[in-house]
């Protein structure tokens, strides 16, 4: 390596250093602290009884029925919301992409749900589905106490998530759509490809990086869902998610050891999800998506 390259590399590192330091300070330290806490018995209600307990907290979490049930609930909400969001978001992106008039107004309008604070949106949906104050029952001609039964509560939670974050998915997919060269589409049309064929064989493969990024972001986000569930059911009717379980242990019970173990498990869960996506859809795609995005 020439001297010049080495110098440039050093300069690169120096320029990165402040950012790396900041990252270490605000992310690595809390994560390391959570891991440290999770290896201890550390309950604020018993300040005198702190002790190193090894993996006992993890054993406690993994053998607990509550953890597995909440994990199932979380995956259910994640799968349900992300799948629908992807379909709706793609439709919305196509409309925004094709729109000839009022393009800016359309894009702005479709972003409104995403701009609303999650707690406010969750409250709005809760009131809408409430049997006394809500309009949904009247609209559907039903007499259903939506949030007082497990499955209907999941419907409301997932619907809220979909309503709120479809615009986000649509925006990411719109970015992907603009990457598809119009010449290619035109050429395909000249060659006699149908609209469906153009979509499946040209648009979708070229959009793969954007789709991957949208899916990855949304899955990670949905897996950590907290506000919507907290506002709408507070985990009642067996709708607890893993984040609610962590909150209960950390904030309500002040059991920092056990709660940190749950948090670390959630962290591992998000890493697994990220790895899974990269494996399934190809590592190259993510790299390209990152540069192009």
């Amino acid at each position, binding site marked *: 390596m020439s001297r010049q390259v080495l110098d440039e590399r050093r300069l690169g590192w120096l320029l990165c250093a402040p950012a790396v330091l900041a990252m270490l300070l605000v992310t690595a330290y809390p994560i390391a602290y959570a891991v440290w806490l999770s290896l201890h018995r550390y309950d604020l209600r*018993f*300040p005198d009884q702190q002790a190193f307990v090894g993996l006992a907290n993890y054993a*406690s979490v993994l053998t*607990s029925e*509550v953890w597995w049930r909440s994990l199932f609930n979380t995956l259910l909400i994640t799968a349900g919301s992300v799948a629908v969001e992807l379909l709706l978001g793609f439709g919305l992106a196509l409309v925004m992409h094709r729109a000839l008039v009022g393009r800016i107004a359309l894009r702005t309008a479709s972003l409104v749900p995403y701009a609303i604070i999650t707690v406010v949106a969750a409250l709005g949906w809760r009131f809408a589905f409430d049997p006394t104050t809500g309009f949904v029952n009247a609209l559907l001609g039903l007499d259903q106490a939506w949030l*007082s039964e497990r499955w209907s509560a999941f419907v409301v939670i997932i619907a809220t998530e979909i309503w709120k974050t479809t615009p986000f998915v649509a925006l990411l997919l719109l970015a992907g759509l603009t990457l598809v060269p119009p010449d290619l589409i035109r050429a395909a049309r000249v060659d006699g490809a149908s609209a469906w064929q153009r979509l499946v064989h040209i648009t979708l493969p070229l959009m793969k990086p954007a789709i991957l990024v949208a899916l990855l972001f949304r899955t990670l986000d949905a897996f950590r869902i907290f506000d919507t569930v907290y506002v709408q059911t507070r985990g009642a009717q067996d709708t607890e998610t893993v984040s609610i379980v962590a909150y*209960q242990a950390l904030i*309500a*019970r002040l059991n920092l050891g056990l709660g940190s173990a*749950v948090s670390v498990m959630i962290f591992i869960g998000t890493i697994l999800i990220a790895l899974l996506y990269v494996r399934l859809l190809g590592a190259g795609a993510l790299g390209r998506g990152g540069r192009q995005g």
Partner: protein
Amino acid sequence: MPARPHLLLALITLALLGCERPQPEGPPTLRWYVFKEQSGAFEEAARRCTAASQGRYQLDLAYLPTDADLQRELLVRRLAAGDTDIDLIGMDVIWTAELAEAGWVLPWPEAQARSVLTGRIAGPVASGSYQDRLWAAPFTTNTQLLWYRTDRVATLPLTWDAMIDQAESIGQGGLIQAQGERYEGLTVFFVSLLASAGGSVLDESGERVSLEPVPTRKALEVMRRLARSPASDSSLASSREDQCRLAFESGRSAFMLNYTYVWPSAQANAPEVADHMGWARWPALAPALKSRVTIGGINIGVGANSRHPELAFEAATCLVSEDSQRLAARMGGLPPTLSALYDDPEVRAIFPFADVLRTTLADAVQRPPTPVYSDISIAISRTLHPLRDIAPERDVDRLRRAVERALHSEGLL
């Protein structure tokens, strides 16, 4: 633009000045963290104590959320962080052990403890004590009574079995209202039944699970029988105190187990029901056993990080005085902890059931006095909900295991 930096500098200076604690003028302010009492009785009591202190302290209220779980969450989070703003705490009776064990409230000094315990009923005194010390002075109390329709119930049933039999024979309009939702109220229901059967959740030390098999099974059998009886409300699995009150006021019920607030409420909302409303002590589990009912209410403790602990104890002493208790009874309908007030004509006019209330309170049972009470309560209500699916034989063991795990703060809840 040259003006910009100066403007910025001025703003920063202002912000820094804003951060500085204003020099206290006049007497030190004491903050009383307490739930929002609707009638304003607590504000009035605080005003009177401030006036009585003759300028030594100023008592301000800081309200806790309405939801009982959120009240505790907010307080423990602040206390754990060492918040110096918390001088006095309106403590729910179930927090005593937790706050005392963690060192978040100060024990009452001997002399002042004696003065705030004189003439107080035994149940409330025990609710503010933990490991032979007083941590919170008894202020207002509460407990459940059996409410019934005098026009439908000819002879008052003395036991649970007799009550359910009688309710079933009434048929239409003979429902029994009790709390069966999965929450604190279900734990209260179970603890009362268990104590009425002669059992307890934890032993004397509070460190081992008791749950004696015979009384526990007896309590579970009553819960199951009630839930499966045609006399229980179909919404038992989701009913709390207030649903019970509304169902009783609607006239569909002959019996209700509920707190004393249902009396003024019925008089205001359903006078025709109130005209036929009788009260009695909770039914017993067997003729030879006395019923014992769980105690509620709030006591006043002093925060461990308070800047003015001496003044705080003084203010707390004033807040639990006879005057304040009378005020809370008159304005807010909160039963006093001073025994003598139950003979007072004004108080007896508010609580016509004063005698039953006082004897129930004297025999009242405490919810398990342990720092992990909130965990144990969740363990109990989760194991026993819904009441109609209780299998006494099996659930005695399930309950023991769940409470044992909670007591050792094992596992998630």
